[in-house]
C-alpha cells in the first residue's frame, strides 16, 4: 500500500510557514541570529521562531494548517505521532530558573509526552505515540507511520516534530564542544559546530493519493552501537540506514536525485556523513544541508526536512548549503539548483547512535 504525504506545515527561524521557509532557503541567507540569555555572558547564534506566540500554540496552529489542507480529515481515525527531544523542558526551565523551585509544574508537564497528550486532547486524535530519540525523533515517527499505513494498521497518521529552544540544550551542546559560536558551516572545512534552533513541522500521511501529494517510498533505521555522542568512524550505521531505505523503496542509489543531509556542521558528523554517502552513492549524487540556513531543530529536523524535500520536489529546485568557503565534498551544492528529479533521500542521525533515512518522491502513477 502506498504512503502519501498529502499536506504539511511548519515553522522555524527561516519562516512562519513552509513556503516562507523554502524561499529563505533559496535566498541563501542564514535565519540564525545572535541571542543573549541562553549562555551566561555569551551571545550565541541560535535559530528562534520569529513569533511571540506560546510554543504549544504554534504547534496547534501548524496542525490546524496541515489538516485544513487535507480533504475529509477525521482525527478519530488518525494516529498522532510526536517526535521531540526536549518536550516540555522550557516550562520547567522558566519556573525553576526564576525561583529555584517548581511549584506549578508537574513532572508530566516536563515530560516529552506533554505535546502528544495536549494535542490529542485538543484535536481528538485516536491516540498519541511520542518518540524521543534525540535528533532522529520525528524521523522515527515517519518510519513508524510508514509501517502503520503500508501494513494497513491505520489509514492516516499525523506526524509532529517539535522542539523549543531551551537553555539546557544550548548549554549542553556548548559544553560538549559542538555548538558553534559563529554561523554554522556544514560541509565546510572550517566548520565549528551546530547552531541550535527551534522548529515545528507537521506532516499528514495517509494511504490516499491527493493532488500535489508526495510519496514516502521507504525508511531505514539502524544503530551505530558505538558511542553515545560520536558517530561510527566509518559511517557504518549511516550506510546501513540509507541502504535499508533504498531497499524498502525498491530503488538503486543512482535513482536518488538529491540528499538532504543531516549536515549538522560538527566536525565529526559532516566528515562521516560524506564518507557514508560516498561509500553508497559515489560522487554522482547532489547533497546539501538546509541546517546551514535553519539551524539544527533537534527532534523536529527529520519532519521539517521531509517537508523541505517535498517543496524541493514540487519546485524541482534543490536548496543549497550556505556559508561554505572550502567544501569538504564535491557533492555539496552551494547555490539553488534547478534539476529534474523524482526521488530525494533525507538523513537524520542522533545522540546514542540512532540513524534514520527516508526516501520521498513524486508519486508513482499507479
Amino acid at each position, binding site marked *: 500500500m502506498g504512503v502519501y504525504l498529502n499536506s504539511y506545515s511548519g515553522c522555524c527561524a527561516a519562516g512562519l510557514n513552509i513556503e516562507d521557509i523554502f524561499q529563505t532557503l533559496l535566498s541563501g541567507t542564514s535565519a540564525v541570529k545572535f541571542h543573549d540569555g541562553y549562555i551566561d555572558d555569551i551571545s550565541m547564534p541560535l535559530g528562534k521562531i520569529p513569533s511571540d506566540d506560546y510554543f504549544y500554540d504554534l504547534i496547534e496552529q501548524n496542525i490546524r494548517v496541515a489538516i485544513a489542507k487535507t480533504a475529509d480529515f477525521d482525527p478519530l481515525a488518525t494516529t498522532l505521532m510526536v517526535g521531540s527531544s526536549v518536550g516540555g523542558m522550557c516550562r520547567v526551565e522558566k519556573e525553576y530558573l526564576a525561583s529555584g523551585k517548581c511549584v506549578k509544574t508537574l513532572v508530566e508537564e516536563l515530560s516529552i509526552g506533554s505535546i502528544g497528550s495536549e494535542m490529542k486532547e485538543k484535536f481528538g486524535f485516536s491516540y498519541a505515540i*511520542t518518540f524521543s530519540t534525540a535528533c532522529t525523533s520525528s524521523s522515527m515517527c515517519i518510519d*513508524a507511520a510508514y509501517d502503520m499505513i503500508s501494513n494497513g494498521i491505520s489509514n492516516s497518521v499525523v506526524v509532529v516534530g517539535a522542539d523549543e529552544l531551551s537553555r*539546557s540544550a544550548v548549554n549542553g551542546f556548548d559544553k560538549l564542544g559542538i555548538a558553534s559560536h559563529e554561523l554554522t558551516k556544514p560541509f565546510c572545512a572550517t566548520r565549528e559546530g551546530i547552531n541550535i534552533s527551534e522548529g515545528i513541522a507537521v506532516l499528514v500521511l495517509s494511504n490516499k493519493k491527493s493532488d500535489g501529494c508526495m510519496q514516502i517510498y521507504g525508511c531505514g533505521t539502524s*544503530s551505530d552501537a558505538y558511542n553515545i555522542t560520536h558517530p561510527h568512524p566509518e559511517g557504518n550505521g549511516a550506510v546501513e540506514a540509507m541502504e535499508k531505505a533504498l531497499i524498502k523503496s525498491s530503488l538503486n542509489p543512482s535513482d536518488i536525485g538529491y540528499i538532504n543531509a543531516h549536515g549538522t556542521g560538527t566536525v565529526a558528523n559532516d566528515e562521516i556523513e560524506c564518507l557514508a554517502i560516498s561509500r553508497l552513492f559515489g560522487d554522482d549524487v547532489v547533497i546539501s544541508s538546509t541546517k546551514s540556513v535553519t539551524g539544527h531543530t533537534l527532534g523536529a529536523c527529520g519532519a521539517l526536512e521531509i517537508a523541505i524535500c517535498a517543496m524541493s520536489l514540487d519546485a524541482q529546485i534543490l536548496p543549497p548549503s550556505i556559508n561554505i568557503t572550502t567544501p569538504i565534498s564535491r557533492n555539496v551544492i552551494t547555490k539553488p539548483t534547478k534539476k529534474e528529479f523524482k526521488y530525494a533521500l533525507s538523513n537524520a542521525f542522533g545522540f546514542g547512535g540512532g540513524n534514520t533515512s527516508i526516501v520521498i518522491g513524486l508519486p508513482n502513477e499507479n
Partner: protein
Amino acid sequence: MKINLEILRVAKIEANDDTEKISDLNEKSIVADMMLRRRLTRNSRISLYLADKLNAFSLPIIIGNSYGEVAETYDILRAIKNRQTVSPTAFQNSVHNTPASYISIVGENKGYIATISDSSDTSLAALRLAAIKSFSYDEILIIITDAINFDQLSEINKCNITKKECGVGLVIRQTTKEPTINITMDKIEGYSPSMSDILSLLNQFASGNSVIEIDF
C-alpha cells in the same frame, strides 16, 4: 485493526520501597568497560539488567520511559541556575534514548532502537509501537522503567508521584492466538500509572495468560 502480541518471557526488578534504590543491578558483570559503567544512568542500569536477564541484547529494542532522565535534567538546571558549568556527561545522559543506546553499545546491537515517552500512557504506547513493528521483526524487547528516586525531585516537581524504582522487560512476538490478557488494567498502588499498567499485564502473565490484543 487488531494485532495480537504473545508475551514470550518477562523479567522484573524493583526497589523494596521508595526510600531506597535497587541495590544490585549486576553492572560489573554486564558492562565490562569501567568508564562506560560509571557513566550509566539509573534507567540505563535497570534496562541493561533486564536485557541481560532476558538474554535479549540482540533483539529490536523499545524503551518506554514516562519521565526520562529527570535526575540528569535536574543536574543541568541546577548548574545553569548557580552559574556553574553544565556537565557534558549529564547532558548526554539527559537524552531520553540513553538506555536504548547503552543496550545497543553493550550488546553490539546495530538494529532497531526506539524510546517512547507518553507520561501515563507510556506502557500502552510502547506496546502499540511493538505491535506496529511486529510486522518487521520476529521478536521485540520492550523495557519499561521508572528511575526518579533522587533527593531533590521535589524541587522540580510539585506532584506527589511515587519515587519507587522499578523496571519490567518483556519479549513479545505477533501471534494469531486468541487474546487472554485484559488490557483494561486496574491500577496498582505504589507505582506510576505507566508502570502500574505493565505490572498488571505481568500479573496476568503469571496466571498463565500470555496474549494481548492491541486495538488500533
